[in-house]
């Protein structure tokens, strides 16, 4: 049985969106910012952010980490979950409406397509962050660990199938999985969040990653 939460009013993280468009410290041009705001408003009107999740015990069988139907030998996830007795598995999406905005631009307007992609991704990140903040309240006195998704490090994308078997996000919030293991709506995320007795440092999600040259890497002050 999975549970659902809706986030009709999501904060917009502009820095995140600009980073996806390639800006790091540089200040974007006025025209770019004005256009970005127009596209943002359009994406916001179209999106319907929602999350479905389950809480499961963390177990190990031999070399395998077992989170209900999700089984993996991923060392990265084991490290992430070390010391956690429970975890939450969730699927989050900003909804199909955002894909319709994207699709409209994809055929005829690469500028606004790129912007809508960046904005959608930023909203999806914010949705996950907001959900994890709620989780922190809901799960107190336990602390949520940084979320960990299929495709991170050695946690294979094929775990998506197990996520879907467990969470039924098709039915709960309308996320489907295609044959290449990609999700529709495209701005969707699945992840594991360990519940730990001790708090962990902020931004550990990026700090733990081995790819230090990634343009999307969060800086310590983010």
């Amino acid at each position, binding site marked *: *049985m999975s*549970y*659902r939460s809706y986030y009709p009013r999501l904060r917009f993280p502009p820095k995140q969106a600009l980073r996806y*468009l*390639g*800006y790091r410290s*540089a200040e*974007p*041009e006025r*025209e*770019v910012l004005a*256009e*970005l705001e127009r596209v943002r408003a359009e994406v916001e009107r179209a999106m*319907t952010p929602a999350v479905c999740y*389950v*809480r499961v015990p963390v177990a190990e069988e031999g070399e395998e980490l077992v989170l*209900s*139907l999700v089984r993996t030998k991923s060392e990265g996830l084991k490290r992430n979950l070390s010391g956690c007795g429970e975890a939450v598995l969730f699927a989050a999406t900003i*909804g*199909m*409406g955002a*894909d*319709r905005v994207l*699709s*409209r631009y*994809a*055929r*005829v307007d*690469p*500028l606004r*397509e*790129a*912007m809508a*992609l960046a904005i959608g991704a930023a909203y999806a990140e914010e949705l996950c962050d907001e959900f994890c903040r709620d989780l922190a309240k809901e799960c107190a006195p336990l602390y949520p660990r940084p979320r960990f998704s299929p495709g991170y490090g050695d946690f294979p*994308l094929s775990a998506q199938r*197990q996520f879907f*078997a*467990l969470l039924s996000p*098709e*039915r709960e919030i*309308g996320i*489907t*999985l*295609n*044959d*290449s*293991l*990609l999700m*529709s*709506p*495209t701005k969707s995320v699945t992840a594991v969040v360990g519940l730990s007795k001790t708090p962990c440092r902020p931004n550990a999600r990026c700090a733990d990653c081995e790819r230090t040259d990634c343009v999307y890497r969060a800086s310590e002050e983010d």
Partner: protein
Amino acid sequence: MDILQAIGRGFFFLDGGMGTLLQERGLCAGELPERWNLAHADEIVRIHSEYLAAGADAITTNTFGANALKYSDEELKAVIDGALSCARKATDQAGRGYILFDIGPSGKLLRPYGDLDFEDAVELFAKTVRLIGDRADAILIETMNDSYETKAAVLAAKENSSLPVFVTNVYGADGKLMTGADIPAMVALLEGLGVDALGMNCSLGSAQMARLLPQMYEESSVPVIVQPNAGLPREENDKTVYDEDEAFFAENLLSCAKDGARMLGGCCGTTPAYIRRAADTIKGTEPLPVVERATSVASSYTHAVGLGNVPVLIGERINPTGKKLLKQALRDNDVGYILNEALAQEKAGAHILDVNVGLPELDEAETLVRVMCALQEVTALPLQLDSSSPEALARAMRRYNGKPMVNSVNGKKSSMQEIFPLVKKYGGLVVALTLDETGIPATAEGRLKIARKILRAAERYGIKRKDIVFDPLAMAVSADPSAPRATLGALSLLREKLGANTVLGVSNVSFGLPNRELITSAFFALALGRGLSAAIMNPFSAEMIRTYRSFLALTGADENCSEYISFAAGLAPAASVTAAPAKAESVPSEGLRGAIVRGLKDQAAACAKELLRSAGALEIIDREIVPALDEVGKGFEEKRVFLPQLLMSAEAAKAAFAEIRGALSGAGEEQPRKCAVVLATVEGDIHDIGKNIVKALLENYSFRVIDLGRDVPPEKIVQAAEESGAPVVGLSALMTTTVPAMERTIALLRERLPACKVIVGGAVLTEDYAKKIGADAYGKDAMASVRYCEEIDRLSKRG
């Protein structure tokens, strides 16, 4: 008594959430529930029996996920046989109860957003439907959150079974499906397909559904179904509980019943106790009648457009007749041009878009389907499928996401025999031309007579009056001065005598005359005055829009004239009636080059126009545009300019090129082009932003780009390279999982076109990886791809 008769008699109670009860009885996470039909048949029978005992008139088989994606053919048959025998056992034991065969969604999303093809979806559902036989009383297609998948399932049911078909969709609190359709759009689609009952289930609790119910009843001409969840689930002491109790649920179902729901039941969390309470509470209430709604509607995958109130504008621009550029675009398979025409018409105020792609040298059916699908990716306006080929109409109507307008049928026996069965099967608002074997009657009365004949024939096919909209045919006044009088007279008669909706291709009236807009718009005003419901017209014509806005204000359709006022305030002074609506742009001091560098689209166009007075096209390209593009490109390579700015400059350059091309074609010349480049995102990959950016830049650098889109099989890429003679192919892949498809494409290119160069790009690729899979070059960013193609162009010219 047959199930439809039973529903006709009064309230009809359905069962509740099978899944909830199975979980209570030990169904594990990830276990396929339909296997219980064999392994725990007794439990399934018991659940059915409990619902029947609680007052349900029908039970739903445990077959929600019984499809060929989840089961082998053999097991599929076994679980379906098991489900039907469990249901039969329960109704036999109870001595009453109808059996609904349950069909849930496939769990996959259809193209273009997902990867399941529409026809594959139809076949998937058909496999399930063919196993039902006559062992159920009806098919219930439920929990559908996509209009397109719903259509596939209904077609499968109708084509493979004669059982009644009921459909429930999943609406959000905003009254829309996940993929965008609102209630009027779904009702239009489903009634067009001929379902026997429709409604909503799952996701929402009973209180939320009760709020949506009145609108659904107001729109529907068939019985309305409501099956809410017992609210939202939450965890309490390791148990799942729902936040609506039986009493609350029953009160809301009562309110649904009073507002027009006829078939009532529950979804997730609704145990037999909920159904019992609801049935007890509703008993004694009188159901509202099922009413035939008279509104004529066409719909898209988001909304419906109704005829009969405010006149509807149908954009006529996607029709090659007399349009050189569109003809060329169709021949070149340049869908982008057509899509831009569509978006521009939408912006200009069109409510529906006519789509005609008939050119003698093209396969019209194939082209119509392709263009229609592409249009439905970018615009949410309903489409009017316009073809004289019944085959093209049949194929397009089948795949259309919504209820289309269909143009057209006429009073000829052969036409009605070909078109009406399509309208009956797929649904559609069909334009009926008042002509027949004897031609076009000269009088209004003659056209009315044909209209009556068409209505009678439609009725024999089971097509409703409201789904016919008459076109009494506007003809050139220059050829026959009395022609407009007959047409206008027919408009009045059709409205008064038949209560019918009407449509006219108004532009025809001015054929052969100068300054056509003047005559057309005056005729348009006269026709509107006679009650014209819809006009097929040019939304870019300022005169036509002025007439339309004024008409709405004059007839009270524009409250406080507010729309008129904001429209009129934006108009240029009356002197320039024929001028393009574009505002006069200020010309930046740094000229065209500066406008492009800064990414100012309108200014770039204005500058180009200005320059064309004193300089040649090629000179402008060489002296202004190319240096500007190089400046921005260099900045991008040096990481001083970022992607959005690069693309804004590309847009500005494109606007300047449009001016230059216009001037060139006026002089009978063509813009010199570089070589052809084939671009595609490889099979399995649906991300095409990288490819789209490269395309925009290559076009600026005057390459002839053949864009094959996303998810393109290797054979198609090779074929396009072969036909176009492109010396270079650009491939994009974003996922590690689709890089093998890229490798396969390269191998096939090497085998068949060894001279053709391949450049690859995408987030997961690196220089080394590109070499490993056999590419000639790696495009680390969009500019790198342009530079490489320039090099190939130089080599190909030399060699």
